[in-house]
């Protein structure tokens, strides 16, 4: 039992580290690679959960996470970036240092909150939920701090990684929901992709600030 905890703790901890690496990294291909690594870690975490808790249907979730988010989406995005020719550095709204500090504060907040609220629940669920909430918030933070559409997509999907981790921890979440979550992400990806191409066609840039200019907002 303790062994089971060790490995899930390790994998979830590494996912958090990957989230921070996503916040820190400002090169677009490196962001993709880290995201793929996080997805692979997620699939391992889900797979480990399936193995230790004898819930075979979770293996499907793990396989989905690995195939879709660990391989297909990063490769697709990679190709898209090459085609768009935007593999330059990405700019951020807030400085890296401040972003990381805010990230640490968010992580502390989510751990504090979940551990306090779920004081009576089973230990596995608490740990998974606490770290998953942290990953979700960090994904949000990444979406806020980035101005580049592609890294925003990555932030969104990293957020979704956290959702799946949380869902795995919570007992009795039916597979259907997970599949639908996974597919909704795929759809969101398509939406984003179309969106990115459109921005690119019109403004020669994937900087979403360009959109705001069109909307006529004063910055």
């Amino acid at each position: 039992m303790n062994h089971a905890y060790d490995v899930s703790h390790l994998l979830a901890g590494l996912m958090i580290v990957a989230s921070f690496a996503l916040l820190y990294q400002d090169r677009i291909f490196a962001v993709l690679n880290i995201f793929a690594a996080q997805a692979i870690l997620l699939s391992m975490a889900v797979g480990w959960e399936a193995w230790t808790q004898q819930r075979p249907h979770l293996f499907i979730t793990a396989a989905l996470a690995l195939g879709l988010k660990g391989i297909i989406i990063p490769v697709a995005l990679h190709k898209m970036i090459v085609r768009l020719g935007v593999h330059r550095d990405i700019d951020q709204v807030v400085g890296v240092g401040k972003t990381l500090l805010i990230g640490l504060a968010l992580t502390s907040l989510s751990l504090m909150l979940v551990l306090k609220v779920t004081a009576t629940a089973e230990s596995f669920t608490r740990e998974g939920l606490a770290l998953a909430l942290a990953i979700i918030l960090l994904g949000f933070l990444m979406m806020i701090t980035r101005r580049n559409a592609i890294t925003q997509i990555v932030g969104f999907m990293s957020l979704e990684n956290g959702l799946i981790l949380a869902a795995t921890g919570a007992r009795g979440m039916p597979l259907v929901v997970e599949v639908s979550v996974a597919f909704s992400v795929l759809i969101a990806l398509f939406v984003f992709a179309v969106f990115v191409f459109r921005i690119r066609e019109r403004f020669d840039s994937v900087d979403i600030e360009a959109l705001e200019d069109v909307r006529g907002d004063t910055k």
Partner: protein
Amino acid sequence: MRDTVILLFGQTIQMFLVLLIAPGIAGITRRVKARFMRRQGAPIIQPYRDLIKLVRKESVVAQNASWLFRSAPYAILAFTWVAAALVPTFASGLMFNWAADALALVALLGAARALLALAGMDVGTSFGGIGSSREMMIATLAEPAMLLVLLTMALTAGTTRLPEVAEFLISAPITVRVSLALALVALIIVALAENARIPVDNPATHLELTMVHEAMVLEYSGRHLAMIEMAAQLKLVLYISLIVCLFLPFGMAPANAGPAAWPVGMAVYLVKLVLGAALLGAWEVSIAKMRVFRVGEFLGGAFVFAFLAILLAFVTREVLN
């Protein structure tokens, strides 16, 4: 009484052991770097020869240097040497291991650093000032991360005394190791910065506006320079010992094992040191030096790792208790 004599003896051995091997460790790092660059490289004993040559040469001191400039090298070497003598190396529980806990060790190194920075400003040149100011800036970035690493140790082992931490870790449960691994990464980053290694500073350069440590010691020559070099080499040994003691204490002679266990402990310790020095060399050839104002991000990484280590340790404690 006999125990006291033995422990005192062991302490003395350690004090001179670190002094003796320090140049050799620097020599190994340089040699490994040279081989990776497909150069022959200087022999490992070259740093010893350099030190002896420097000591024998006459010292050239600037006309307006003060007593601080002349006495600082002795004090810097003394502070660093004492710190290196008090870290558990081949055996824990030696005579005076208790005198300084981890916090005091960091402070001793801080004293050496402050004196070095002052010495850099004494002659009143622009190079000395640039080195001192950057050294102190890097220290402000490294110290918070260092404290968080120590906090992780104190949290998991329940003490700031290094021998106890080492003994705890030999028998520690696996769960805390995730936190410890993160803390290890943080400590390695801090150690790179504190020892003026790539990517924070380049120990092999001169006459470059990016240099930090070498700029501070630019005015030194002869025996003074020899002592400063010696102190830098001791500091490297100290940090490798600290990392080894905190994270890989396996093979260290236990506190009550007596002198019979020392040779094994010493052999293991030396192997670990050599490995550490070689790894450092390999790391240094594989990465480029950073712009000085990116050091903040690099050391910020150490801070994040150390903070995450604490947070994960909190979760573990909370969940398992």
